[in-house]
């Protein structure tokens, strides 16, 4: 069980988080939503140890920030919102960077980067230069690297965690669904997933637990139905929103949920 309590972060002169907190269970997908600038990324970065913060972050009651980097790397992998690669690595070589710790000792380690690429729908892309991929392809290649780092959702009975910052923001709807299914499968296999999401529909569809943020605080967290209510959403996003209401006059709308109905 992952627990972040009373997280406060000041960036520059601005206090970005005011005592935010969340709890997440392995085996479940926890999604952080909220308007732009509400502090989703900052909260995730505080939890993953990127940022210094006040408050506590514990994993199974153990202080997460007390673990040395290599031990943490065995427990969780992090997909940042954006990243720039410094040298001309091939896609295969980027994914292979995720091959750290004990996973690298497996007899089939050499095949794993290829399999990770298959999972994100990039089979055959290994020999391309990472820097020459499209934004969405780069995002999926990075996801493959992150998946590889925690290849087994549960290792020696200890669940491992995936932290994803807007994993589907740059993707088309087909790949959005693919990636969300991937994350869900990781959770179903016993791992923990904490994802920052932009898309409320995908959130409603895949989240087991939702954390709704506004202005550096957590407005509500809990089950999807409780948190994603008309009232909460209208308040958080500053406009009148109504859940599950098709647009008037039958305007075109395409919900990813439709993919499940076929």
């Amino acid at each position, binding site marked *: 069980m992952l627990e972040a309590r009373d997280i406060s972060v000041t960036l520059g002169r601005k206090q970005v988080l005011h005592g935010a907190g969340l709890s997440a269970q392995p085996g479940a997908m926890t999604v952080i939503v909220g308007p732009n600038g509400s502090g989703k990324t900052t909260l995730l*970065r505080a939890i*993953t*140890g*990127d940022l210094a913060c006040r408050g506590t972050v514990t994993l199974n009651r153990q202080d997460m920030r007390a673990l*040395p*980097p*290599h*031990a*943490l*790397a*065995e427990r*969780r*992998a*992090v997909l*940042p919102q954006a*990243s*720039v*690669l*410094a*040298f*001309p*690595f*091939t*896609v*295969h*070589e*980027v994914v*292979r*960077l*995720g091959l*750290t*710790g004990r996973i690298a000792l497996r007899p089939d380690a*050499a095949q794993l*980067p*290829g399999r990770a690429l298959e999972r994100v729908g990039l089979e*055959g*892309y*290994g*020999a*391309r*230069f990472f820097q*020459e*991929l499209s934004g969405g392809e780069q995002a999926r290649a990075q996801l493959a690297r992150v998946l590889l*780092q925690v290849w087994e959702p549960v290792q020696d009975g200890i669940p491992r965690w995936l932290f994803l910052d807007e994993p589907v923001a740059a993707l088309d709807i087909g790949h959005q669904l693919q990636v969300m299914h991937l994350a869900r499968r990781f959770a179903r296999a016993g791992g923990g997933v904490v994802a920052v999401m932009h898309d409320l529909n995908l959130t409603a569809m895949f989240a087991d637990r939702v954390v709704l943020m506004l202005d550096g605080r957590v407005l509500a967290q809990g089950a999807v139905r409780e948190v994603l209510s008309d009232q909460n959403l209208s308040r958080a996003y500053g406009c009148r929103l109504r859940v599950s209401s098709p647009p008037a006059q039958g305007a075109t709308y395409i919900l990813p949920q439709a993919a499940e109905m076929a």
Partner: protein
Amino acid sequence: MVALPWGRSAGHGATGDRSDRARVTILALVVFVMLAAIASLGTGAAGVSLGDVLAKWISGEELSVRERVVLFDIRLPRLLTGMLVGASLAVSGAVMQGLFRNPLADPGIVGVGAGAGLAAVLAIVLGAFLPPAILAVAGMHLVPFAAFFGGWVTTLILYRVSTRAGRTSVATMLLAGIALGALSGALTGILVYIADDQQLRDLTFWGLGSLAGASWAKLAAAAPIMVLALLAAPMLARALNGLALGEGAAAHLGVAVQRMKNLAILTVAAATGAAVAVSGGIGFIGIVVPHLLRLVMGPDHRFLLPAAALLGAGLLLLADIISRLIIAPAELPIGIVTAVLGGPVFLWILLRRRGIVDM
């Protein structure tokens, strides 16, 4: 670039795994260095031929005193110095580029060499004023250590100035390098005025970069520092690979980022400082060697660092051979040879990748 449907592949099989190619390259480089070493031992103004010496050795005949002196007291230390200096310059270039996350970061270009040089000159000129007791203890090690220290301070300043929150501004790095280089040059210039004749000769040799002064004594003073740096570098390989994704990502991959950066800076300073101390300013090895290798076998530092050491050693030996042959029986300072050969290659790198500076 042509927009093929599948884009440009890195051109090596379907998998994108270039490690086999890297291993083959490294093997080829080992052979290259051995050939260059043999050629280097056989080259020189004294007209001692390696073939004669070998023939004598095989037939069990004694070498003449002249042959022994030329081979073992002149050419052998020069060979080893050249190899170590070439390897150190290339590896410190590769490590610095990994640390700054930029292929243009080179100790020579961004003023680390100049900083090391200033400290070495300080040691040469002001060392004379040190109490004899200290001088006796420090001895031959004074100059290499001063150069190491100078390189370290310069690298630290450079990193502080040009890197904010893990991001290096290339423009700031290059400009800071120019400023540091100019400052070091000016201070070195002042020192020239208070130097005596012998020191002046040392300093001139120094500015141009040369292996002509190589001796067992100088080698003994600088070699341990270079060897240490060369041994430390491979330990940085995984961390530098992670750093290519950014500091945050490196940390998430399990890299102790701050510790690794300190070690990288020390390695760069040690390798550059000691190389500068024995041979003066030899340019372009640190930038050209890693760049060529990245083209051939990719940027994975686990292979890049050893390959850079080998190619750097081999190329410096070749440059040294050229410097001894081209105006024989006189010889050209090797720094001139590497500049004449490396300068155009460097410009070609810039031409090929105009965008590089904006990264």
